């Protein structure tokens, strides 16, 4: 099956025999994507391949050349082949076109990547871009929908419809919806180039297989002839089809072809019947090739629609995972490329059309043709890059998507967990963010094991931006299903022909990937489902040497049993890509079975051993923690915590200043956070090692005392031990990279006039001697502060050396990167500076434990003032006991004693959740360990005040908790000013920390100050530090605007009068009442604004 259609165009220079003129047929075949390599202009490197690290550091795109073979044929002449260049297409890192693909860790390190580089992203302009997973409707499965808005579509429309999202082999999709009209008619709706078309279903059914009325009746009603409801509807349906006076297949096809000729861009010589066929192929049930299959599926759709209208079955909920799958990045990307190639072909068509109108067309001229084909913009690479860089989908057809923006995100390397979760997050769709109803955000039981219940952000994207459970997989392969079909028949499913369903109303439909394979009775369906599962497991166990039928391991066997008003019964099998699957244990064989989200609903899966009911339960969870996402799994003892705290921790874990990577010297990210003194947690879950998190530590094991000490720890503040801080607790740095491009303002072609370097005029300058080398660039390792000279540039025009100063926080020059130009032999113009800014913890910095317990450092006490235990232990961190009662983060207590016991015995503790129960409690388990080490069973110790040495009244809970330092630091947030920049219009302080603005003292703050009677302070805030101004007021007329300064020569000035000489009131025409008052400047502005509306402001000045 070809990816793209052939296009045929006529030049319009027809004669009597060929009224349309010469015909050219052209198509694109075999697209090829090359490995990313250096441009041909670059001539010095022996290795022509390009690697992602170079793209990151040079801030360019990692891409390879895309070419396609363009075939064309003029009339019936020979087929000509020409290679067309479609530009440079961004390539996914570690995909099969990436130069890193087969590399092992050692080689990856040599390539300046992480040893365990996972890939899966694109490098676009130096940024790592990820195409986010997006929830899609389950493909090739008919959904019954009841939506009130459908009733408003037009006269006769009701709220009932069935919908199917059909996916072609090339993974592009076409959704069709069947509407139920109150007249009994059915209309099939499908979009085409963002336009919607409605076609009567009876017409389509006739066009598909030339079905007679009887055949349509039988296909829909089946053996259910007793069902009066359905019978009546089908009768109505058939009757309404009579209006078109279409009786045969040919007529139906011709009718459709006639109506769709223009929108289909069909060749002019194509008969209507063929266009009708084309429409059916391209738009109706596109996942099926055979018209009979399409017909059967359409009949099923009709049957399901009637079933939901009559209440025989319920409507499906499109928000459950059962009815969902995923838009995979690769499928999306392929769809985009396909569409852009199609655009190119359509562009050629339009160009020929234009030329033929101008009479310039000459299809037998090879030169004309080659010029024609190269005239159309064909830089698909550029368009794909735009898509990845902005996340905006520019599409003619809409690609059957609900949204056009927000497809890509930057994979921030803030820390390991953050980075990892970019690849595991899955969005419900931008459309739902605006939705007032919150139904879509609900956590549904169907998502068990597929979506993490705790890892979702708080606030507006809550429940829409989910994360996959850490064992959830997405199918990615197209499976061969021939064997499945044969097996089905062998197992007793009766194929469609001749209608077996006619005799028995209880026959269930058996569908494989949205194709009606046959029918069987309920009892057979149960047997078939069981047998298939066994065969599937056998196949999976046998591995490569498997004999027997090829049943894909990821196949879903969704047997929906008959019920009263439940889902429409049937046996639904799925083998397609982009589905959710997850491993569970098959109890009978003790083998790992992969189950999908559709079948899970109808399966009996036990969680723990005690949940197994013999004879009923068929499967069991591998581990109870499988339902949690990667990040949620890293919360120790999270089963002890109140659920929202685990949600908070999932957020905070991703804001932690940790170790984002090992390859720091080769990164040019805008901003990187790094914890210099990271430790591996004493308390860690089992999957800690599976994910290799030890190489990317995210925090420090801190001795934490829960005590109210001096009051500096109240309201979620925490006291740090100053001596611990001096020994390196929580010490971190920020790496910032700035690019300097001297050629930024230079037009291409202009000579270079600025160079990095120190000119003669500066050579003896001592201020730069220690910082800047002769090449004009700073020495790596030099300390820079705001205002220090950073680099030197020689300006040819002015003949002088210019020193450019460093702006920003004090730090060190970590790296100076010289970046070559795209053009070979051009001198150095672009430099990237990486600065290392030390950020040792200070008062106001934010920390948190792994239990959603965040706090701000409020004070750093020296060791001698900290409370201590009998053994001389002093806490690194003091937190207040009030942080616990309402938040109920018992997990933190458990972690505290577990890690304390672990530290005392010198072992790492397993903090995997769901390990303890009422009979065997965590408190006893770790308490016993503590007692054996000579400590109190409950984790408390007597403590002494560091100041007086007095023993405290209560014993204090002290233990070891893994603390994270969050990236929110006061140094990035503090805002202070007395006076500063002002708004030119109102003279009030501007806002914004970056611009040196103020913090708004708003109405409520003002109210509070009034209530306190803090009059002087109020005056200071609202007047003196804001828009204090002195204004002249005329006492006589009370106007602030009338007094104006006039030139001394004016006749209005009466020199004999006292008062300011050059002032006069324009209303009173004298200066008698003019005095000066202090006013907020906005008042003057207000008066002016009111004046423009003919309103006067009168001040009563005494």
């Amino acid at each position, binding site marked *: 099956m070809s990816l793209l259609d052939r296009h045929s165009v006529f030049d319009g220079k027809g004669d009597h025999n060929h009224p349309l003129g010469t015909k050219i047929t052209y198509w694109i075949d075999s697209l090829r994507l090359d490995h990313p390599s250096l441009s041909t202009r670059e001539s010095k490197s022996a290795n022509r391949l390009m690697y992602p690290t170079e793209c990151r550091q040079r801030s360019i795109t990692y891409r390879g050349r895309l070419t396609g073979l363009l075939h064309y044929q003029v009339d019936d002449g020979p087929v000509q082949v020409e290679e067309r260049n479609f530009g440079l297409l961004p390539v996914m890192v570690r995909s099969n076109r990436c130069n890193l693909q087969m590399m092992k860790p050692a080689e990856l390190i040599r390539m300046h990547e992480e040893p365990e580089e996972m890939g899966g992203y694109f490098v676009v302009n130096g940024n790592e871009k990820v195409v986010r997973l997006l929830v899609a409707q389950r493909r090739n499965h008919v959904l019954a929908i009841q939506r009130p808005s459908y009733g408003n579509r037009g006269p006769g429309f009701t709220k009932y419809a069935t919908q199917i999202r059909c996916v072609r082999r090339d993974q592009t999709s076409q959704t069709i919806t069947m509407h139920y009209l109150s007249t009994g008619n059915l209309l099939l709706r499908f979009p085409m180039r963002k336009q919607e078309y409605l076609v009567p279903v009876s017409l389509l059914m006739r066009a598909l297989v030339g079905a007679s009325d009887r055949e349509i009746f039988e296909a829909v009603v089946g053996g259910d002839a007793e069902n009066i409801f359905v019978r009546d509807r089908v009768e109505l349906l058939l009757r309404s089809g009579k209006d078109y006076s279409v009786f045969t297949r040919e007529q139906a096809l011709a009718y459709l072809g006639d109506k769709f000729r223009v929108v289909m861009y069909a060749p002019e010589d194509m008969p209507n019947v063929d266009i009708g066929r084309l429409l059916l192929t391209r738009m109706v049930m596109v996942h099926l090739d055979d018209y009979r299959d399409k017909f059967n599926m359409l009949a099923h759709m009709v049957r399901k629609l009637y079933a939901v209208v009559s209440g025989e079955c319920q409507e499906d909920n499109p928000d459950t995972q059962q009815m969902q799958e995923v838009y995979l990045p690769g499928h999306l990307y392929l769809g985009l490329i396909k569409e852009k190639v199609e655009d190119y072909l359509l562009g050629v068509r339009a160009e020929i059309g234009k030329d033929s109108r101008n009479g310039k067309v000459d299809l037998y001229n090879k030169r004309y043709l080659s010029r024609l084909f190269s005239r159309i913009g064909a830089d698909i690479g550029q368009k794909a890059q735009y898509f990845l860089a902005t996340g905006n989908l520019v599409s003619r057809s809409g690609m059957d998507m609900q949204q056009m923006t927000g497809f890509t995100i930057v994979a921030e390397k803030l820390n390991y967990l953050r980075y990892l979760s970019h690849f595991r997050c899955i969005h419900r769709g931008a459309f739902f963010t605006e939705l007032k109803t919150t139904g879509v955000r609900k956590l549904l039981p169907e998502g068990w094991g597929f979506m993490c219940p705790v890892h979702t952000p708080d606030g507006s994207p809550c429940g829409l931006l989910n994360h996959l459970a850490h064992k959830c997989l997405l199918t990615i392969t197209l499976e061969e299903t021939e064997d499945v079909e044969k097996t089905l028949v062998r197992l007793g499913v009766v194929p469609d022909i001749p209608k077996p369903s006619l005799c028995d109303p209880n026959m269930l439909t058996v569908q494989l990937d949205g194709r009606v394979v046959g029918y069987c009775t309920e009892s057979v369906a149960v047997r078939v489902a069981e047998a298939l599962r066994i065969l599937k497991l056998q196949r999976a166990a046998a591995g490569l040497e498997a004999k027997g039928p090829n049943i894909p391991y990821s196949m879903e066997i969704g047997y929906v049993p008959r019920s009263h008003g439940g889902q429409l019964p049937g046996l639904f099998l799925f083998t397609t890509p982009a589905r959710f699957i997850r491993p569970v244990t098959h109890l009978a064989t003790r083998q790992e079975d992969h189950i999908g989200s559709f079948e899970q609903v109808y399966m009996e899966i036990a969680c723990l051993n005690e949940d197994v009911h013999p004879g009923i339960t068929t499967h069991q969870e591998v581990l109870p923690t499988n339902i949690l996402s990667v990040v949620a799994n890293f919360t120790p003892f999270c089963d002890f915590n109140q659920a929202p705290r685990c949600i908070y921790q999932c957020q905070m874990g991703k804001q932690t200043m940790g170790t984002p990577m090992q390859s720091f010297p080769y990164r040019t990210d805008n901003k990187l956070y790094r914890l210099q003194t990271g430790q591996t947690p004493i308390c860690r879950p089992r999957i800690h090692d599976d994910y290799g998190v030890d190489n990317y530590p995210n925090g420090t094991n801190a001795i934490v005392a829960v005590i109210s000490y001096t009051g500096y720890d109240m309201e979620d503040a925490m006291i740090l031990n100053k001596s611990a801080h001096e020994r390196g607790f929580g010490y971190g*740095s920020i790496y910032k990279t700035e690019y300097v491009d001297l050629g930024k303002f230079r037009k291409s072609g202009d000579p270079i006039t600025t160079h990095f370097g120190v000119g003669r005029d500066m050579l003896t300058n001592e201020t730069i001697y220690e910082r800047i080398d002769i090449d004009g660039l700073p020495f790596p390792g030099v300390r820079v502060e705001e205002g220090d000279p950073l680099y030197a540039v020689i300006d040819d025009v002015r003949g002088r050396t210019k020193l450019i100063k460093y702006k920003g926080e004090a730090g060190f020059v970590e790296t100076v990167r010289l970046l070559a130009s795209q053009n070979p032999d051009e001198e150095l113009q672009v430099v990237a500076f990486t600065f290392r800014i030390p950020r040792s913890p200070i008062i106001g910095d934010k920390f948190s434990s792994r239990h959603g317990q965040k706090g701000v450092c409020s004070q750093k006490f020296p060791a001698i003032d900290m409370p201590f235990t009998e053994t001389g232990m002093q806490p690194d961190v003091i937190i207040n006991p009030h942080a616990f009662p309402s938040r109920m983060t018992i997990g933190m207590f458990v972690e505290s004693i577990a890690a304390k016991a672990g530290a005392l015995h010198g072992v790492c503790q397993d903090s995997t959740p769901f390990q303890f129960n009422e009979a065997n409690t965590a408190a006893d388990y770790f308490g016993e360990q503590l007692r054996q080490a000579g400590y109190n069973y409950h984790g408390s110790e007597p403590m002494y005040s560091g100041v007086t040495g007095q023993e405290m009244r209560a014993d204090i809970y002290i233990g070891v908790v893994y603390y994270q330092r969050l990236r929110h630091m006061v140094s990035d947030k503090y805002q202070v000013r007395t006076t500063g920049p002002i708004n030119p219009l109102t003279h009030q302080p501007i806002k914004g920390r970056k611009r040196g603005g103020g913090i708004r003292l708003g109405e409520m703050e003002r109210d509070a100050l009034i209530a306190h009677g803090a009059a002087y302070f109020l005056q200071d805030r609202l007047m003196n530090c804001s828009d204090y101004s002195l204004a002249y007021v005329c006492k006589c007329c009370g106007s602030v605007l009338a007094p104006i300064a006039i030139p001394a020569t004016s006749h209005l000035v009466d020199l004999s009068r006292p008062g300011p000489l050059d002032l006069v009131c324009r209303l009173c025409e004298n200066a008698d009442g003019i005095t000066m008052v202090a006013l907020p400047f906005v008042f003057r502005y207000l008066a002016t604004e009111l004046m423009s509306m003919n309103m006067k402001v009168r001040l009563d000045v005494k």
Partner: protein
Amino acid sequence: MNGSAHVGDPNNPQIRIRSLEKDSVDFVLSNTQLSVANSLRRTMIAEVPTMAIDLVQFIENTSVLADEFIAHRLGLVPLISHNVDEFKYTRDCTCAEYCKECSVEFTLHVKCTEPGTRVVYSTELISSNKDVVPVAEGEDSRGIILLKLRKGQEINVHCVAKKGVAKEHAKWSPCAAVGFEYDPHNKLRHLDYWYEKDIKDEWPPTKNADEELEDDPGAPFDYKAEPTIFYFTVETVGSLDPQAVVIKATRVLQEKLGALQLALDEDQNRDNNANMDEGEPWV
């Protein structure tokens, strides 16, 4: 002396050393008040001067660690400071920046030339003073790992160790931890032990509990009693001997008290003088 705590003169403190190791001392301080005992603890932690690297000049650093991070690690390396008293504080010294009187210089120059990892230890710091060297446990110990180098990487630093106290920075502290306890049987009832079922089961006795007799449950509570016996465990980082820490701390405490006494006396005298001045008639 023995455990007869109730007797004794609070102004005649006594020390009984229970054990003395290379880097720790365990002693019982008795016949004194809580404030004195705690002052001793605080002084031992924060005010006994030692030597520690305070200035690091980087000549070459091509290792993977940042300059300030290595400097910080160097600062925390404990240096043998037995003769710390021979040095002046730099602020009291006559020199401009640092000199032999107030500092010790160290150099560290390592380059890794072979494949594999070259580990740099604290004992590779070359001292300008044979008495002030990095602490190493035992003869063949190589000290603390400072950093690791791979082939081609080099570290070349010049460090200056100065005298200081932990009040200023924790690196000058001679103590790793100071254990401190009084009243192991909670006779004074300063503490209200929390327990679930059985206090004996849940609160294991400390090793100091053997030193004192257990409380007689029937005896009346002496609400006026004050703690007089204090159990100390001083653990050092190796820069000073444990006994030296205690002795030096006592001396520092004495000096401070002496200074306070002097200041008070002076103050008193001045006041007296002032009073006398007041009496004089105006001229």
